[in-house]
């Protein structure tokens, strides 16, 4: 990309940032929310700078959890989608299970997880995985079962096995739909890790937030929140860019319009 275009791409996100901060400040000014409930952007900015060491340390831990959870969740979600698409018998049995996994509030599982997995990185990664898992499995499955009939016919005349058909035909055809789920998963991953940290932990952004909240260090809590949000936004756009690279043939039609 030429430098000008890159610059142009950066302008709007920056604009978005400014807008958000402006809205934030406006809300403060208009509603007069006390600062121990919603601190000013300034105060949070100061906390970000003053406590950067602390934040960086905890952010690092959370980042590891997010990445591991993302990889695990995507792999697991994709496997589920493939299994659902491949084995008819699984569908009506596994699908409800999958739904149940989503409908159970994580706090209810927390003690069980803690019991089995202890307090290491394990349960946090697992939580992030559970959160990421569903959009990937769901959109993946939806994509896999909507392969245009013509390609399936072609696969049949080529004598493909069901497995080949699944991996070589249905999977690439499902990519646009799956991409939708992956983008969603990426933006949900950070919150998954944080929820995992609430289950029990001694480090990570989630831990930091809970602690800061309990000690009424609301500035610090919001600073941690800002880092978390930055993770989510970066991940979303990172995954989006990766998907564009992975699907060079795929154009957003309306997007590229003059």
């Amino acid at each position, binding site marked *: 990309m030429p430098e000008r275009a890159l610059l142009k791409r950066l302008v709007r996100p920056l604009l978005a940032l400014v807008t958000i901060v402006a809205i934030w400040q406006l809300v403060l000014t208009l509603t007069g*929310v*006390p*600062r*121990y*409930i919603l601190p000013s952007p300034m105060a949070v900015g100061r906390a970000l700078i003053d406590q950067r060491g602390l934040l960086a340390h905890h952010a690092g831990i959370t980042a590891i959890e997010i990445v591991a959870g993302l990889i695990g969740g995507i792999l697991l979600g994709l496997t589920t989608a493939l299994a659902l698409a491949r084995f008819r018998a699984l569908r009506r049995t596994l699908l409800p299970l999958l739904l149940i996994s989503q409908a159970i509030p994580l*706090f209810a599982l*927390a*003690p069980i997880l*803690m*019991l089995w997995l*202890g*307090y290491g990185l394990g349960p946090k990664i697992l939580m992030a995985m559970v959160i990421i898992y569903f959009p990937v499995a769901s959109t993946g499955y939806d994509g896999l079962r909507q392969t245009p009939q013509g390609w399936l016919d072609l696969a049949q005349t080529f004598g493909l096995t069901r497995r080949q058909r699944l991996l070589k035909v249905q999977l690439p055809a499902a990519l646009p739909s799956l991409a939708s789920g992956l983008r969603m998963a990426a933006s949900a991953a950070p919150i998954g890790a944080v929820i995992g940290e*609430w*289950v*029990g*932990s*001694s480090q990570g952004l989630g*831990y930091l937030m*809970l*602690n800061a*909240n*309990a*000690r*009424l*260090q*609301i500035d610090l809590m919001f600073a941690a929140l800002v880092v978390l949000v930055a993770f989510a936004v970066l991940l979303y756009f990172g995954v989006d860019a990766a998907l564009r690279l992975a699907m060079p043939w795929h154009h957003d039609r309306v997007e590229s319009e003059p």
Partner: protein
Amino acid sequence: QEADDDLAPQMIPLSVMLDWYVNPVHAPIIIAKQRGLFEKRGLDVDIQAPADPSVPPKLVAAGRIDLAVSYQPQLHLQVDQGLPIVRVGTLIATPLNALLVRADSGIEDISQLKGKKIGYSVGGVEEVLLSAMLEHNGLSLDDVEMVNVNFSLTPALISEKVDGVTGAFRNFEPAQMKQEGVEGKAFYIEEQGVPSYDELIFVANRETLDEHRDADRRFMDAIGEATSWIINHPDDAWQSFIAYDPSLDTPLNAAAWKATLPRFALRPAALDSKRYREFEAFLLERGQIKAQSTISRLAVDLNAP
């Protein structure tokens, strides 16, 4: 109809938020409501329960609710952070907080916790309290591993995922452990180098205190009367308590009820300012607060002249 019209203007609405879901520590409030002690004093009390104990003081500070049940250690931090709240009454006048271990763990002394895992719930000052206890026993925070177990103190301890938990309530968690067939051993924090304090207090908005002083006073009056009645008629009080919400009728609550009775403040409005001074000094010394507040900013005696 007419009676209503006569009565209505005199009733003062008062919203009270508990620190957590209703449990035996809230007995005086519930009983006062059940026995009509608030109405008798012209109060129309609305009781709410939050899911996060850190929220009620903030809502009091923001003027959203009138009274909140909170904790003395938190009060110091909150006032230090500039929240305009002040203690107006006491519900439980001793610490309930305790360091719990399994009775079968062989830990007889806090100093034996060296190198062990200690779970805590997010309270805000748990670390300071623990560190004071450890130092009292010749250890420091670095000698133990702290784990935030958030929702599940008892399960963490029973399942031996941690060796001890702090932030447990001595009236509740041991009973809970016993119910699950595990005997617990409690180290009482005021015996381990932490100054004594009021575990559960009522806080009000300091800036609007004068307007509400009268209502708050009547409220504390009702709490006092309810407490006396509970002490005098513990079994009737239990029946009245579970009548408030039948789902409160569990063996665990019954056990906790007994353990809680002796801890209610018999003079809820009375203020022991020494406790607040000492605890303030304790926190200041440990760097938990930035500056010392005058007692009048922290706590008031509603009945003081």
